[in-house]
């Protein structure tokens, strides 16, 4: 039997940079197909080409036996490809029927034909085994039912292929069960599903086959049941298992004697962080590893007081009171470089000097007046020490390269003499040379007694820098790796399965 969808040799460049290189995707009739890959692997681009959002540069798409090239999502929808996005928008005050028929109301003699619309809504819901009164407002029903209605509306009668792009990221466990029920019903009705998710448990629970993408290429297609979790993670991250296992290269292992600088226990924040524990000692680089959406960034933001935790304890040695906002964390000796330099780091219109002095400025001031002389001395010193390439301290930071901007932001914290520095993706979007410089700097600082907590999506980087790694999975700490146990293989294994025994050790 011919597959329902076959995308072959798809190429796509954005401004000359290849996003897809001969990508492949084949989906059989009535199968649930997982599409996975890291950020930037090309899965979103591939899906957007399929749904007509982007035009491909080359390659061919055959859908339902015909070669197609959709030019708009509407066209794709008409051909039987429905897409369900992460957020589902409905009108809670209006009836179930109105919500289902929104935008495709039936008319008779210029008036709304309510009778046939109700009938259509009932028929559609019956297809998904939902038995509710279509006349009542949507808000009269529990969230899970509303979700079902939304999905039913999106899929309609004619869908042959349903694309779900991280559909579970904003759902709780019960709602996820409901969604899986829908997926199974679709499958039994012969509808195919492309399921994009980073949560391994979900992939194994509901998918038949998987396509793994990396750097714009399709690197593996396999039946879910025949692919181990470890193989899946390894393939996705593109690491060779044989090359790991290096000799012990870690700095002073005895640094961790004494009380930790930071001790986090059973932290819970929103939906993404459920039970996270870790600690950082003075003079130690600790890595937080995990797949996308495992809750790394959310955890450290809560530690820094940028987001409010729901449960758990965060103890910073020597901190006076609770940390409820970044200013408290800074006073307690913490610094935090956010993963998004542009959005949360630099103040683009201000100078290198002012960006660097932003946190220190109030302490340096006399009676509220900025001490320009002192601040210039400090800035000059850090520009030299970190090798920041700029035309001078008064140059606008937006004119600097990413690596130099990051150094300025590092200096923003270093000039405050912190005891703990949190680095979220410190090398993202930075060229190779600057990357090495920044990592060396971090190591040097740790050697001088600074505690560093580091998140990086580049496993290689974390493994090389950190002497201890906590692995998060689905918002939980699943492993603590230390000393010789820190290598890419063990980290990936923990990302894939988790180690119940190591987890016990963390909590003990």
């Amino acid at each position, binding site marked *: 039997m011919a597959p329902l969808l076959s995308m072959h040799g798809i190429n796509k460049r954005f401004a000359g940079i290849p996003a897809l290189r001969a990508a492949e995707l084949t989906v059989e009739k009535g199968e649930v197909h997982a599409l996975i890959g890291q950020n930037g692997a090309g899965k979103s681009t591939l899906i957007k080409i399929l749904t007509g959002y982007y035009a491909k540069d080359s390659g061919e798409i055959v859908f339902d036996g015909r070669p197609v090239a959709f030019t708009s999502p509407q066209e794709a929808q008409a051909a039987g490809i429905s897409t369900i996005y992460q957020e589902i928008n409905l009108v809670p005050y209006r009836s179930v029927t109105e919500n289902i028929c929104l935008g495709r109301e039936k008319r008779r003699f210029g008036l709304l034909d309510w009778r046939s619309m109700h009938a259509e809504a009932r028929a559609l819901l019956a297809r998904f085994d939902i038995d509710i009164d279509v006349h009542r407002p949507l808000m009269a029903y529990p969230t899970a039912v509303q979700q079902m209605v939304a999905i039913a509306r999106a899929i309609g009668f004619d869908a042959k292929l349903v694309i779900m792009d991280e559909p579970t990221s904003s759902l709780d466990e019960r709602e996820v069960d409901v969604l899986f029920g829908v997926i199974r019903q679709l499958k039994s009705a012969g509808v195919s599903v492309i399921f994009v998710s980073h949560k391994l448990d979900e992939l194994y629970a509901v998918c038949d086959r998987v396509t793994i993408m990396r750097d714009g290429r399709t690197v593996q297609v396999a039946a879910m049941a025949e692919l181990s979790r470890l193989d899946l993670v390894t393939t996705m991250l593109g690491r060779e298992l044989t090359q790991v296992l290096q000799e012990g290269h870690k700095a002073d292992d005895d640094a961790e004697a004494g009380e930790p600088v930071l001790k986090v226990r059973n932290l819970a924040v929103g939906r993404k962080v459920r039970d996270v524990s870790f600690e950082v000692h003075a003079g130690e680089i600790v890595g937080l590893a995990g797949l996308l959406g495992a809750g790394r960034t959310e955890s450290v933001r809560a530690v*820094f007081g*940028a987001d409010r935790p729901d449960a758990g304890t965060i103890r910073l040695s020597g901190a006076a009171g609770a940390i409820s*906002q*970044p*200013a408290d*964390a*800074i*006073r307690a000796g913490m610094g*935090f470089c*956010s993963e998004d330099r542009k*959005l*949360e*780091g*630099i*103040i*683009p*219109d*201000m*100078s290198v*000097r*002012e960006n660097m002095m*932003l*946190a220190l*400025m*109030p302490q340096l*001031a006399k009676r*509220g*007046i*900025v001490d320009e002389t002192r601040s210039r001395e400090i800035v000059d010193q850090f520009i030299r020490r970190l090798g920041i390439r700029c*035309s*001078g301290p*008064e*140059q*606008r930071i937006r*004119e600097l390269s990413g690596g130099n901007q990051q150094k300025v932001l590092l200096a*923003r914290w270093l000039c405050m003499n912190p005891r703990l520095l949190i680095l979220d993706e410190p090398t993202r979007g930075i060229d190779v040379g600057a990357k090495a410089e920044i990592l060396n700097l971090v190591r040097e600082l740790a050697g001088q007694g600074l505690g560093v907590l580091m998140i990086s999506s580049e496993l290689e980087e974390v493994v090389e820098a950190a002497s201890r790694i906590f692995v998060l999975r689905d918002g939980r700490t699943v492993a603590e790796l230390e000393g010789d146990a820190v290598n890419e293989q063990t980290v990936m294994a923990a990302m894939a399965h988790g180690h119940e025994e190591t987890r016990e050790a963390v909590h003990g």
Partner: protein
Amino acid sequence: MAETATTLPPAPAREASRFDVKAFLTRYGAWIALALLILVNLAITPNFATWQTLNVNLTQVCAIVIVGVGMTLVIATGGIDLSVGALMAIAGALAPLIFLGKLFPLPHPAIGIALAFVLPVLVTGFLGWCNGWLITHLRIQPIIATLVLFIAGRGIAQVFTNGNLQVFNLPEFQFIGLGRVFGIPFQAVLMVIIVAVAAWMLKRTVFGRQVLAIGGNERAARLAGIPVATVKQRVYLISGLLSGIAGLIVIARNSAADANLVGLGMELDAIAAVAVGGTLLTGGRATVVGTLVGALIIQLVRYTLLANGVPDAAALVAKAAIIVLAVWLQRQGQR
């Protein structure tokens, strides 16, 4: 420009080679426009170079500039304050009630006059702080939060006065609007002092730099430990205080307080002056002296047209055109 609150870097080397007309116009456009206007007037307007002309134009522009300084600070944080006109009306309604002894008995007239200066300004300052509180604690957008007082403020002022026009003749109080120091209107002196202090504050104090940091990137400012809520509340408090002062000047000048008219449309005049002066309406880049220049340009264009027999209605069109031009130039400068 001598005073631009964000630090202006030396132009990067690649731009130094060729003269960048757009960048030059963005940076100095307001000053050039002001200079041109003065030159044109010297040429065509009779009796332009007189003390009287200067004083007329200064008194016309004082209230706008004083309110505009507060507005500049608010806009520098990325906000907006629509309540300034209504706050002027409140201060304008309260002051006569106090010095005429209608609110409470006065032991001595001098005390009444002193309180008439202090209390209304404190009240409008407090109301401005309330704006800031709505914005920071209830997370209401500035345009909506300040719309509350924009709508209700004038009503409150009318309730104070039962909707009556309050007429008075009290030279000690009216000094703020009519008095002269060495022949210069006192209100102009006050305006220059306020502009100078605000410009210095924006450039040299921690508070001023934090105002610009918040407007430049609020999330980054918060993560750098800047007390965003406190700074914003203070900015709206200052805007309220200055609106109160402007309200007192206007009623002193008119010898009458009409809650219906004091400060009417002031929010838009102030925003226009800020925009024409070169402050970025999205926040992060602000110049208080620019606001003064902006207000002078708008006033001078109007004066030029009126003095040369063009009706006021046409002058309004010219004002709109200037604002559009200024904002367009700003966008060009951003690239």
